[in-house]
């Protein structure tokens, strides 16, 4: 385990590895983006086994004021998504509630010297002094990482943006808010296509909102979006310009024996992620993670309980609003394992093949750098064994909502409030 990075003074609101896993981006509530880069593994320096260090920091979004509605627009970064790398520079999309920005992160390690019209320090040279013409020469300099905004995609969302997803065509991406999904071209900022609109004519009839959306990893015409009623819709953009009619509709029938007033709230899907293979997708609702086969709409193929012991506490969790927490989930590179967060700084990993699961804690006190993490267990009742923690002692303010898994290796990033933990998993 790498020593927790406490670079963010604000709560971390999103974590994302880039396509190679070399870079890790985090966004926070203050609108800042911090990018970590993995150190090259060197045989000589055994101690630094691919640790992540700060590579670049920049302010992505600032707080804004919507004068028309007299509302402040938060600068909190809701999502970051990397674009596939096509040249030496790196590109990422970062979104707050209303605006998406395309950032270019580039390195500069050379500087031109020997200008004709100005001195090395930038002052204009006296024209009388210029007697010869010279060609500037590129000289090495200390590495500088620059982040510059290349595109700003604004004014397309009335409601809060909850998802962005880059399409596999590498030309378009989608952005979703509570009621609409828009399709953008990366080069065009002054317009977007609305592809899903679930806003009812009469807002009084609103009973369902969009909670997450993602493009299919291989089929650039397909995307899914999840709802607050626990349903997922797969849409095909070839079918119509406006994808209000789904191609597939995924919903698990409700278990009538476990019905309560909170059933709908806990069925609300907080995150949806396609597997790398594109064959499956995973959804996270309040108490469980479900894996769906895209070919089967009537129920998931796998269901994993994240913290079933909370089912009897739903009333309290409703009262303190924790029931509305939106947990994310992620696949590992080979789709053999999935991970999601919980409370008390716990996070859970499930191995899909062996059906084993493990609960780990992201906390400074309990782990030293390079030490193995100890599995944790929550005791649900009766006698509490040593090392177990009882449900009532869980700290519901310490929630792990955002986790990310390296696309190729067993390296995970876990955001616990304003701390970022990076773990290298040695198992399988």
């Amino acid at each position, binding site marked *: 385990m790498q020593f927790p990075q406490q670079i963010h003074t604000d709560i971390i609101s999103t974590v994302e590895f880039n396509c190679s896993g070399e870079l890790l981006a985090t966004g926070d509530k203050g609108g800042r983006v911090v990018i970590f880069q993995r150190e090259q593994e060197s045989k000589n320096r055994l101690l630094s086994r691919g640790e992540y260090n700060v590579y670049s920091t920049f302010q992505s979004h600032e707080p804004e004021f919507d004068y028309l509605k007299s*509302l402040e627009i938060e600068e909190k970064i809701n999502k970051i998504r990397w674009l596939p790398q096509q040249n030496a520079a790196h590109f990422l999309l970062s979104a707050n509630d209303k605006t998406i920005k395309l950032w270019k992160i580039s390195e500069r390690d050379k500087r031109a010297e020997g200008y004709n019209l100005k001195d090395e320090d930038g002052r204009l040279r006296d024209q009388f002094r210029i007697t010869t013409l010279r060609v500037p020469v590129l000289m090495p300099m200390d590495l500088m990482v620059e982040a510059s905004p290349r595109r700003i995609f604004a004014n397309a969302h009335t409601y809060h943006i909850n998802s962005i997803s880059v399409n596999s065509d590498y030309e378009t991406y989608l952005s979703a808010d509570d009621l609409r999904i828009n399709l953008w071209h990366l080069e065009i900022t002054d317009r977007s296509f609305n592809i899903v609109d679930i806003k009812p004519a009469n807002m*009084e009839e609103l009973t369902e909102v969009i909670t997450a959306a993602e493009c299919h990893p291989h089929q650039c015409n397909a995307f899914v979006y999840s709802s607050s009623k626990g349903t997922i819709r797969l849409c095909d953009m070839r079918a119509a310009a406006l994808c209000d009619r789904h191609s597939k509709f995924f919903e698990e029938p409700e278990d009538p024996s476990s019905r*309560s*007033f909170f059933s709908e709230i806990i069925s609300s899907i907080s995150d949806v992620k396609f597997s790398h293979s594109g064959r499956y997708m995973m959804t996270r609702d309040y108490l469980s993670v479900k894996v769906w086969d895209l070919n089967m709409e009537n129920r998931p193929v796998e269901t994993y309980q994240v913290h079933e012991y909370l089912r009897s506490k739903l*009333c*309290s969790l409703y*009262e303190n609003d924790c029931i*509305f927490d939106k947990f994310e989930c992620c696949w590992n590179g080979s789709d053999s394992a999935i991970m999601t967060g919980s409370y008390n700084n716990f996070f859970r990993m499930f191995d899909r093949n062996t059906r084993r699961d493990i609960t780990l804690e992201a906390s400074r006190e309990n782990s030293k750098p390079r030490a193995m993490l100890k599995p944790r267990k929550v005791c649900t009742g009766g006698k509490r064994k040593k090392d177990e923690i009882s449900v009532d002692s869980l700290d519901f303010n310490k929630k792990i909502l955002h986790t990310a898994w390296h696309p190729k290796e067993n390296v995970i990033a876990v955001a616990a409030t304003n701390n970022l933990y990076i773990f290298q998993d040695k198992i399988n």
Partner: protein
Amino acid sequence: MFSKGTKRKFSDGDEEISDESLVGARVASSYNLQRQSLLDMSLIKLQLCHMLVEPNLCRSVLIANTVRQIQEEMTHDGSWHMVTEAFCGPGQSPSERLVATEVLCRSREQDAEPKLFSVISYEGCREEEVVADETLCSVSVSDTVSNVCLAGRVGQCWEKSELSGVERDEEALEDSRLGSGEDEEIDTEDGASTESPKTTGQVFGTFEIKNGSPGPDSALEELFSDVDTSYYDLDTMLTGMQSAPKMGPYDLLDSLAPSHGSPSIVSTPTCRSDLNELDHIMEIIVGS
């Protein structure tokens, strides 16, 4: 154990009542109280939503759906015989599920109070009528030992509702005293259910259009102008919320002066309850 002549409030008084049915009815009544508490909590959450600068639409929708669900069920149940409900099939008694979470459903303010539901006795149920009478006159909770638990709960109801449920239940009690034979719950439920379409309308209407802010004073008056109209008159309540300007929590604190005129509808005896209600609202806002 139970005197033959005693009429139970919650069940049809004509039949001879057995112990079992009383237990069942007790469970059912605690379920109703629990459900009521959930409804109260949800409505407060929706109200607070309006006070925030930018409410979360997903959360509001989920809460509104929960409110609608409760109201639908209350309407549905209200027309059912209370005892019959308690005898629902083993697999489908909703009261069991909610009773299981009863310990956790107590709101913050109730933490200090003794366990209410488990202490409710038959006497307690019967006393409710009497207790309510007393609260009509003053807010102070009745001293009688047997009343303490339930009275506390009922007293909490008055405060928590922020609106004078006094009038509402007054009507209900009068009705029952007049022997209309209706369950106390029915009035409230009917009132509640008819308002639900408008409820959500007011909730989501605000997301579309912002009304001009008339100014903090009048807004505050509007905010509390319907404090005591029927608690279940959601339409009025949420209309009041809608036209309130977007104030941050600090604005509300600043403008909340004790000298601020009480709403006209509140009659003198309940003036004190009004202040308690304001304190209570403040607690919620500051606490949240």
